[in-house]
């Protein structure tokens, strides 16, 4: 059994594809991050990320399919599930090995699986755009935290950067413990050693909140309550569109 391991970066995965083609040996299992130490049988090949090799694979994908497809592969990579590297390897092989562009061949199970996962990742990203709730801090900047199912924060940053260009903000992924900070000029990646955040609901400690923050949360809750037509109450649809896992981060759904 062939086992490859890589550093869980996108460039790392592309390098892994390169190495497999060069060795004419394809892994049956791919381990990411530190998981490599726990293998009992067989040998593990540790792939060392090489940007030049990664770029060759990236260009290969584009020339065998399209630039859009290459970006889709990146987005699926962000699904961050244990099985995605293997799915992507299979998918990239299909793309590279065939004479025609296979990205629209939906009779191929790998392609359908890839497209389905891509849809899920995009949906999660759009849910960040929908459900992020900023809290205004004493210094006048805005903070939001969240725990997305997939690692989709990077996909959302351009949207927030354009929309909230005149306020500084932080969006933090509590699950993966990193976030992005915008200081009115640039966006940078940040990791906080010590978080003054209630991880249960993403709320900042009240000493950090701006004076009127609670009032606006209250106004928003009042609005949420008033806009509902009670005669039309529909729990099923409500939960379908607003799954319960998001509730704790939304002021309008929390008891407070």
């Amino acid at each position, binding site marked *: 059994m062939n086992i490859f391991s890589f550093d869980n970066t996108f460039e790392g995965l592309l390098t892994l594809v390169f190495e497999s083609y060069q060795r004419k040996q394809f892994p049956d299992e791919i381990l990411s991050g530190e998981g490599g130490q726990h293998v009992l049988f067989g040998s593990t090949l540790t792939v060392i990320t090489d940007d030049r090799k990664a770029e060759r694979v990236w260009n290969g994908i584009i020339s065998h399919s399209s630039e859009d497809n290459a970006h889709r592969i990146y987005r699926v990579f962000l699904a961050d599930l244990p099985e995605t590297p293997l799915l992507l390897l299979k998918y990239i092989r299909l793309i590279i090995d065939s004479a025609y562009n296979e990205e629209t061949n939906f009779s191929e199970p790998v392609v359908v699986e890839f497209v389905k996962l891509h849809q899920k990742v995009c949906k999660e990203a759009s849910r960040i755009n*929908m459900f992020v709730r900023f809290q205004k801090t004493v210094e006048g900047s805005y903070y*939001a935290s969240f725990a997305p199912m997939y690692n989709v924060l990077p996909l959302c940053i351009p949207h927030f950067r354009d929309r*909230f260009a005149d306020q500084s903000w932080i969006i933090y992924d509590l699950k993966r413990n990193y976030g992005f900070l915008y200081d009115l000029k640039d966006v940078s990646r940040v990791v906080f050693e010590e978080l003054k955040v209630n991880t249960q609901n993403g709320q900042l400690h009240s000493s950090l909140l701006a004076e009127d923050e609670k009032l606006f949360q209250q106004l928003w809750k009042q*609005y949420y309550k008033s806009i*509902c037509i009670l005669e*039309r109450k529909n729990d099923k649809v*409500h939960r379908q569109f607003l799954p319960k896992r998001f509730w704790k981060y939304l002021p309008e759904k929390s008891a407070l």
Partner: protein
Amino acid sequence: MISESSLEKLKILAGAAKYDVSCASSGTKRTNTQGGIGNAAAWGICHSFAEDGRCISLLKLMLSNYCIYDCAYCINRKSNDIPRTSFTPDEVANLTIEFYRRNYIEGLFLSSGVLRNPDHTMELLIGVAKKLRTEHKYNGYIHLKTIPGANQLLIAEAGLWADRLSVNIEIPSEENLKILAPDKDFKSVLEPMKIISNNILESKEERKQHRKAPLFSPSGQSTQLIIGATNDTDHTILKLSSALYTRRDLKRVYYSGYIPVNTYDNRLPALNTPPLRREHRLYQADWLMRFYGFRSSEIVNTENPNLDLELDPKVTWALRNPHLFPIDINKADPLMLLRVPGIGTHSVQMILMARKHNRLNSSHLQKMGVVMKRARYFITCNELRSQNIQELKPELVRQLLLEKKSAASDNAIQLKLFHPMAPALR
């Protein structure tokens, strides 16, 4: 500016606005300006969902719920004894900005009861939009309600600040409108629509000449019809919306199941529950007209004036036209694929792309997301050989489709014994 006292106002004026269905924030793509706040995403973004399942995308408010009109179906009619209040334009602008900065909303939807006269009210609404765009450098979404009877020049100005304008027709036929809303007639609502649509066309033409010519209501206009408050048939309703889509180029017609707000008024029917099923079927029919190439006369006509509440309008159309089926998935024209029950726009695209690579069979279709339990009676594909509508006849297909829906009920089990699909009888 905004204080505790705003809470009570918000409660009343959001509550007064909730019967307006429109909440779309799509259709405009605008990037932020230097030093400004906000943009408009072309696809629209919902920010929350109320417990009635409706999306909350915009801060939907009435500027005031005082009104000089006395429309029977409206909660804010002047003869109702309810708490009344008004926001100042500054309050609305500040509330919008503060909510927007926290990513609670996608923009503002502003309506109002008619204060003093239509022109005065329209001026107030325009004032809020103007304030947001100029003083607050706000580039997010704004939807303004046009007050029936407002001056043409005011409508022309509103379109320069707003992304979308709308005039509500509310009652789908003129005779009924006159009975229920003595202060209004069709002319007072259709005239502003005409003005808006002309202005939109003009602005589009101008922008072809000069790239920087001002936008006019870039996200178009919409309207709303109340369903079930009058005896108007679905035929009347869909004929009206079809005319609005083709002749006035409307972006959306919303259907709002009547909720008895003024139970004492005996011009209105006494309903126990709002006609939600009918409303749902009307939206399905609306989608068929806008995205599936159906004409309104194919969905409802004088022989079938109302939509079937039990089955969706695409299925009922297909059952009325069995001679067109079954179609071959691997060869059929895209427009015909769109007409197959169980196949949506997304599936059609996937089928068209995939069949260039391979001949498709039923398991491929299933994986792509085609609803086979409906589609199977209307298609043939590579290898699949199941009984189709020609062999089974429309009546039986109808029964089979209904049966799938209520598989749990006893009725269904009884039916099963008598249809020829049952192996014992075949």
